[in-house]
């Protein structure tokens, strides 16, 4: 067994998500990340480190709410203005519910306003989903209660007709699988399942219909150079803003 093969086999589930996010972000110059989103932040940091090592374009990362990793100086409105100007290439959204047309629900379940379950609220989703070209939907929990046929409340619609819109969902990454999204067809396509999961399991755990190839490939393992960057420089960078998360990553690695 070669060293490379060893390295490639020994990755944690979270490392795969981080590496997948770095791949999904390929080509962006400025990515904004929520303050409490360590995995997306790690993916963005990994892309930045990898681009530097490959001599490719510089990647700027804005971590919202962070004092250190926030170069904005015009107040809370600046993220939204910046995105509206076309200066934010990628952003992450989640959702208590996400449906097959990529509508997301950050508000709650059951009839509004007296929802049975109430989540924090829409935040900036109803705006950013329209103006950021590459929105990556990210939700680790992959279950029929998250991925529903139709969200109870549309915080932000996945697609629009007859409305000025230059942004929207490009992919959905979960703890089990990776999907692409086609806004013209308003439909997800299963691209790959992560190590340990099966296409059948993904189908069973997804409450909406989607397309899938006859043979669903496995999500590519991070290559050795990528893992090296992630375990070295990126983990050190992460530790500055997400110390607990960096410890978790190190722990999982040791156990892997």
């Amino acid at each position, binding site marked *: 067994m070669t060293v490379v093969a060893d390295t490639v086999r020994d990755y944690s589930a979270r490392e795969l998500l981080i590496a997948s996010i770095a791949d999904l972000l390929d080509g962006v110059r400025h990515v904004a990340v929520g303050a*409490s989103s360590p995995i997306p932040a790690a993916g963005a940091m990994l892309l930045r480190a990898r681009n530097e090592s490959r001599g490719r374009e510089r990647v700027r990362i804005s971590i919202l*709410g962070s*004092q250190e990793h926030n170069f*904005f*100086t*015009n*107040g*809370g*409105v600046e993220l*939204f203005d910046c995105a*509206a100007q076309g200066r934010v290439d990628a952003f992450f959204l989640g959702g208590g519910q996400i449906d097959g047309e990529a509508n997301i629900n*950050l*508000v*709650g379940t059951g009839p*509004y*306003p*007296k*929802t*049975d379950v*109430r*989540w*924090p*609220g*829409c*935040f*900036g*989703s*109803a*705006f*950013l*989903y*329209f*103006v950021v070209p590459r929105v990556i939907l990210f939700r680790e929990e992959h279950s029929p209660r998250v991925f529903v046929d139709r969200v109870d*409340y*549309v*915080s*932000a*619609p996945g697609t*629009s007709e*007859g*409305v*000025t*819109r230059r942004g929207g969902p490009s992919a959905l990454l979960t703890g089990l699988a990776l999907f692409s999204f086609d806004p013209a067809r308003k439909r997800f396509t299963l691209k790959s399942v992560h190590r340990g999961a099966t296409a059948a399991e993904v189908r069973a755990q997804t409450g909406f219909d989607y397309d899938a190839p006859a043979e669903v490939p496995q999500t590519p393992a991070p290559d050795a150079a990528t893992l090296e960057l992630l375990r070295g420089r990126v983990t050190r960078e992460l530790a500055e803003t997400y110390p607990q998360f960096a410890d978790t990553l190190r722990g999982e690695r040791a156990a892997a």
Partner: protein
Amino acid sequence: MGDIVALDALAAEVKSGMKIAIPADYCGVAMAATAAILANRPRDLHVVCVPVTGMQGDMLIGAGLVGTIETSAVTLGEAGGAPRFIDGVRRGAFRLMDATCPAVHSGLIAAQKGVPFLPIRGIIGSDLLKTRTDWRIIDNPFAPDDPIVVVPAIQPDIALFHAPEADRFGNVRIGRRRELVTMAQAARATLVTVERIVETSLLHDENSAAGVLPALYVDKIAEGAGGGGGGGVGGGFWGERGAKTPHTRRPPPPPPWPIGLWGEYPADPAEIARYAAMARTPEGFAAYVDGFSRRLTEAA
């Protein structure tokens, strides 16, 4: 303009039925003033969160002071959902005006500029428009077939926040938290609690002036440099700081604890988690508020 007053005098400005704007946790939250408002019990407040809130909004709700909440989110962050908010939503205890962050900013900017509305992209297709009937869709007058949302101006009666320092002329350092400028200019009156009052004008130096809200927009300021509440509760930071820098100048301390203050000190996550746990029931909430107020009074 920019009068320096006691915390009670500041809190007394918040009266029943008023529309009050409060910032997100990263902007400086006037928690001691919140405790004082809780003691005053103004009713039917319309709380505008700029653009979200956490423990402060949840406490105002829990105390039954909120008639309307206009916000893009309510969350305690790592401590989870805001218990009194969630409970109130279920019971329909207040009018709920869900929003989206940039729409709150645009509404305040409209008031700042004295215009009745501002246009904003996006939103169309969101269920927000079903309940935010105060938001409209109009035709872009400059392009065919281009519907666009317009949101009305938000003019708060009061803007309330906490900042590191003010000078004795009433100017307040807001750094790069420029939504505080928008809030203050949009509001009829602005109330600010600060860590300290300095003698030299913050406008004196050209570089320092860049991060200052001028006294023209500030009505009342209450000072308190540390010393509040945290000693022995939730551990650490605030209590230590209070002990190291005893307050000598003016008695009532308006700390933002357990919320952090940019450039000064971090939040106290253990205390926020303790709040989250206690506030799961009305009784627990009442007990928390009692202790919270008592700690502030004792510190004063």
